[in-house]
C-alpha cells in the first residue's frame, strides 16, 4: 500500500521547501552585498524548486482528502465518506492547517509568477525581490511545519469515517472564496518585496513604482473579487440576508483592500511624477502588514467571530513573532533608509498630484478607522475595562461620511491634469453634472419618503457616474484637435480607471438602495397560506422531507406572484447535517436586476407551521456587479501593454 506513504512524502516536501525558502532568502542577498552574479542567479532555480515542492505537498494533501485517508488527523477532522467529491477537494482548505497550506501555495505561485517575469527587471532587482519573498515564504513554511502541519497521522487506530466538513463551508461560494481572497492578501507581498528591495538598494527612484504597479493591480483585483464573493456568500448562505456585517474577520480583509486602493493610486503619482516616494514605500509595507495582521487576528484566537479558526496559543505566539520580524523589520528599515529620499517636483492646488494626495489621505483615514473599530474592543478588554462591541451602527456613522467625502473627490480627480489644471476649463461641466445628479437623485428619493442622507449619497453616486462618463467622452472625442467622429485608442489603463470608478458608483447605488428600500418581515406561515410583502404575494405550497448525501432536509415550496403573474418558485431548506449534528438554513433567492426576493425558514412551529423570514432586497445585486466591474478594472490595469515590455538589452 504505497498510498500510505503519501502524507509522509507531503511532510517531507514541506521540510525541503522550507530549506529552499531559507536558501532563497539568504543566497541572493549575500550575492547582492558581495556583488556575486553567481549567487544572485541562484534566485530563479531556488524559486522553481521551492514552488514545485509546495505544489507537491498541496496535491498530496488533496489526494488524502479525495481518497478518504482518515489516518491523517486533519482529513479525519474535516472530511467524511459521504461528502460530495467537490467538497472533499475544497475541504483541503476547510480548516486552519490546510488553509495555511493554501496560503503558502498561493505565495509560492506569486513567487513563480515573479520568477517567470524576471527578464523585465534589472539584473539585481529581480533576484532580490524573490529573496524578500523568500523571507515571507520561510516564515510561513516554518509556521506551517512547527505549529500546524496538516500531515499529522493518527495511527494505529484509523477512524473509518471523518468528522465531516463544517456545513457552512459546503458550498460553491466557499470553494472559490478562500483561494481568491488569499490571492489578493498574499499578492500584496510582491509590492511589499519591491518596496523593501528599494529600501535595501537605496534605489528609491520612480522605477520601482513602475515595476510594482501591475503586481499591485493584480493583487488588488483578486482581493476585490475575493471580498465580493465573500459578501455574496454571506448573503445567501448565512440565512439572514445581510451582505456585510462589519465582522472583525471581514474587516481584516477590508483593511488591506483600502490600503491597497491607496497604494494603487500613490504608485501612479510616484511613477509619473516622482513625488511621494517615501510615502508610497511606507504604504506598500503598510498594505502587506495589514494582510499579515488579518492573518494574525483570524488565526490567533484573539477575536470572537463567526469566521475565526479554532485557536491555539502557541500558534498565536508564533504568528506574532512572524509579524514582528517581517513588519517590524521592514518598518525599521524604512525608518533608517527613507530619510535619503528627496523629491523635487512641484505642483499646485489643482494639479492631479493634489487630488491623488487627497485620495491617499482619505483612504488612509478610512483604513485607520476600520483598524480602530476592529481593535478597540480588544484593547478595551486588554486594559480590563470590560467588554464592548463595535458594530455596524458605529461604522455606518463614522466610516460612511468619510467614504462619501472620498467619492465626491473621486469624481473630480480624473478631470485634473498633472501639475496644474485650469479651473475655468472644468467648472461648467462639473456644475452641470452635479445639478443633473442631484436632480436625478431627488426624483428617485421623492418617489419614496424623503431622506436627505439618502439624497446626498445617491447624488454622489450619480455624480461619480456622470463625471466618469463625461471625462471619457471628453478624452475620447474632444481632447486635442480631434473631430467628433474620430475614434482614438485610449490606453487600457485609462479604461481600467473608468470601469473601476464606475463600478464603485454602481456598488454605492446598491448599498444605498438596499438599505433604504428593502422590506423584511418574519411571519408564521402554514402550507396553503399566503402573505403579501412589498407588493409580492408569497404562497406557501407545501413542505417535503428530502435526503441529501450527508444531510436530511425540510424543503419548502413557495410561489411568488406579482399582480397575478408567477415571478419565482422558491425552495428554501432547513438542512440537518447528520455527522456534525448541525442545522443549516439554506435561503431561497429569486434574483433580479432591480430586486431580490429572499426567503429563509426559521423555526418549525406547531401544526406544521413555520417561521418564515421574507426580504425584498432592492438593487442588492448592484453591490456585487459593481465589485465585478472593479475587478475588471483591476485586471485591465494589471495587463496593460506598457508593463509587458522586456528589459532592453544593454
Amino acid at each position, binding site marked *: 500500500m504505497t498510498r500510505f506513504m503519501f502524507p509522509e512524502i507531503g511532510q517531507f516536501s514541506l521540510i525541503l521547501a522550507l530549506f529552499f525558502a531559507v536558501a532563497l532568502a539568504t543566497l541572493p542577498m549575500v550575492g547582492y552585498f558581495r556583488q556575486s552574479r553567481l549567487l544572485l542567479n541562484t534566485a530563479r532555480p531556488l524559486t522553481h524548486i521551492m514552488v514545485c515542492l509546495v505544489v507537491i505537498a498541496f496535491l498530496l494533501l488533496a489526494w488524502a482528502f479525495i481518497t478518504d485517508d482518515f489516518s491523517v488527523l486533519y482529513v479525519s477532522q474535516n472530511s467524511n465518506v459521504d461528502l460530495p467529491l467537490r467538497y472533499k477537494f475544497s475541504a483541503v482548505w476547510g480548516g486552519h492547517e490546510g488553509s495555511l497550506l493554501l496560503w503558502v501555495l498561493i505565495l509560492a505561485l506569486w513567487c513563480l509568477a515573479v520568477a517567470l517575469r524576471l527578464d523585465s527587471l534589472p539584473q539585481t532587482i529581480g533576484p532580490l525581490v524573490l529573496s524578500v519573498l523568500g523571507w515571507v515564504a520561510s516564515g510561513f513554511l516554518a509556521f506551517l511545519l512547527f505549529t500546524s502541519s496538516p500531515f499529522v497521522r493518527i495511527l494505529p487506530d484509523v477512524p473509518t469515517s471523518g468528522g465531516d466538513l463544517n456545513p457552512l463551508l459546503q458550498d460553491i461560494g466557499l470553494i472559490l472564496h478562500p483561494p481568491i481572497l488569499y490571492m489578493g492578501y498574499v499578492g500584496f507581498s510582491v509590492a511589499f518585496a519591491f518596496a523593501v528591495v528599494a529600501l535595501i538598494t537605496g534605489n528609491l527612484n520612480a522605477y520601482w513604482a513602475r515595476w510594482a504597479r501591475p503586481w499591485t493591480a493584480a493583487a488588488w483585483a483578486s482581493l476585490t473579487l475575493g471580498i465580493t464573493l465573500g459578501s455574496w456568500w454571506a448573503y445567501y448562505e448565512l440565512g439572514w440576508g445581510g451582505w456585510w456585517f462589519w465582522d472583525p474577520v471581514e474587516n481584516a480583509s477590508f483593511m488591506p483592500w483600502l490600503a491597497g486602493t491607496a497604494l494603487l493610486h500613490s504608485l501612479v503619482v510616484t511613477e509619473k511624477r516622482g513625488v511621494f516616494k517615501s510615502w508610497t514605500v511606507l504604504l506598500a509595507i503598510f498594505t502587506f502588514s495589514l494582510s499579515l495582521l488579518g492573518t494574525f487576528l483570524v488565526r490567533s484566537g484573539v477575536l470572537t467571530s463567526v469566521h475565526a479558526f479554532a485557536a491555539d496559543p502557541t500558534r498565536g505566539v508564533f504568528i506574532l513573532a512572524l509579524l514582528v520580524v517581517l513588519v517590524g523589520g521592514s518598518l525599521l528599515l524604512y525608518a533608517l533608509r527613507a530619510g535619503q529620499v528627496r523629491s523635487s517636483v512641484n505642483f499646485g492646488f489643482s494639479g492631479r498630484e493634489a487630488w491623488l494626495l487627497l485620495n491617499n489621505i482619505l483612504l488612509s*483615514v478610512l483604513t485607520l478607522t476600520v483598524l480602530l473599530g476592529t481593535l478597540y474592543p480588544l484593547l478595551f478588554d486588554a486594559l480590563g475595562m470590560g467588554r464592548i462591541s463595535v*458594530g455596524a451602527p458605529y461604522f455606518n456613522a463614522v466610516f460612511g461620511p468619510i467614504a462619501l467625502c472620498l467619492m465626491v473627490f473621486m469624481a473630480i480627480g480624473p478631470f485634473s491634469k498633472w501639475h496644474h489644471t485650469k479651473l475655468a476649463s472644468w467648472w461648467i461641466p462639473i456644475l452641470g453634472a452635479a445639478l443633473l445628479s442631484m436632480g436625478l437623485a431627488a426624483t428617485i428619493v421623492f418617489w419614496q419618503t424623503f431622506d436627505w442622507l439618502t439624497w446626498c449619497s445617491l447624488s454622489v453616486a450619480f455624480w461619480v457616474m456622470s463625471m466618469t462618463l463625461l471625462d471619457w467622452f471628453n478624452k475620447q472625442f474632444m481632447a486635442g484637435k480631434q473631430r467628433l467622429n474620430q475614434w482614438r485608442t485610449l490606453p487600457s489603463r485609462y479604461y481600467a480607471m473608468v470601469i473601476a470608478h464606475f463600478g464603485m458608483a454602481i456598488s454605492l447605488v446598491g448599498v444605498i438602495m438596499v438599505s433604504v428600500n428593502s422590506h423584511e418581515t418574519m411571519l*408564521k406561515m402554514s402550507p396553503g397560506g399566503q402573505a403579501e410583502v412589498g407588493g409580492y404575494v408569497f404562497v406557501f405550497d407545501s413542505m417535503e422531507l428530502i435526503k441529501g448525501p450527508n444531510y436530511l432536509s425540510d424543503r419548502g415550496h413557495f410561489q411568488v406572484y406579482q399582480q397575478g403573474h408567477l415571478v419565482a418558485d422558491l425552495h428554501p431548506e432547513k438542512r440537518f447535517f447528520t455527522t456534525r449534528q448541525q442545522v443549516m438554513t439554506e435561503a431561497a433567492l429569486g434574483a433580479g436586476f432591480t430586486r431580490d426576493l429572499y426567503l429563509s425558514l426559521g423555526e418549525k412551529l406547531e401544526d406544521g407551521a413555520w417561521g418564515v423570514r421574507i426580504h425584498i432586497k432592492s438593487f442588492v445585486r448592484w453591490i456585487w456587479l459593481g465589485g465585478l466591474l472593479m475587478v475588471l478594472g483591476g485586471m485591465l490595469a494589471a495587463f496593460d501593454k506598457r508593463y509587458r515590455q522586456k528589459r532592453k538589452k544593454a
Partner: protein
Amino acid sequence: MMKQLLIGLVLLGLVNTTFAEERMTFRSELNQVRYQSLIKELRCPKCQNQNLADSNSGISVDLRQQVHNMIESGKTDQEIVDYMVARYGTFVLYRPQNTPATFLLWYGPFILLLGGVVLFVAVLMKNRGRGSK
C-alpha cells in the same frame, strides 16, 4: 393549470385561505420601525457575532420579545437600551456608548481626518513655494 386557476381565485379573494400572520403586531408603524432598528443595534449576548434581528437562538427570541413588550408598553429607546445594559453589559450594544473611554473610538477618525487636511494643505503650500520659479 388547475393550480394556477385556483391561485387566481385565491388572489381574487374568492376562496377562503389561511393567511400568514405577523409574528408580532404593533400599535403603530412608528413602533414597528423602532423595533426593527433596535433589534439591529443590539447584539445577541450568546452568539458569536450576530444582532438580535439575525439570530435565531433562544435568548435572541426572548430578548426580541422583551424589546417588543417594552416598546408597546411605552418605554423610550433609551430606557430599553439602559434595561439591556443593566442586565447584559455594554457588550450588547453594537453602537458603543459615548463615554470618556470611547472618546478615541468616536472622535479618533475625525481627528485623523483633521490631521489629514492639515497635512494636505501643508504639503501643498510647501510644494507651491518650491514651484514658483
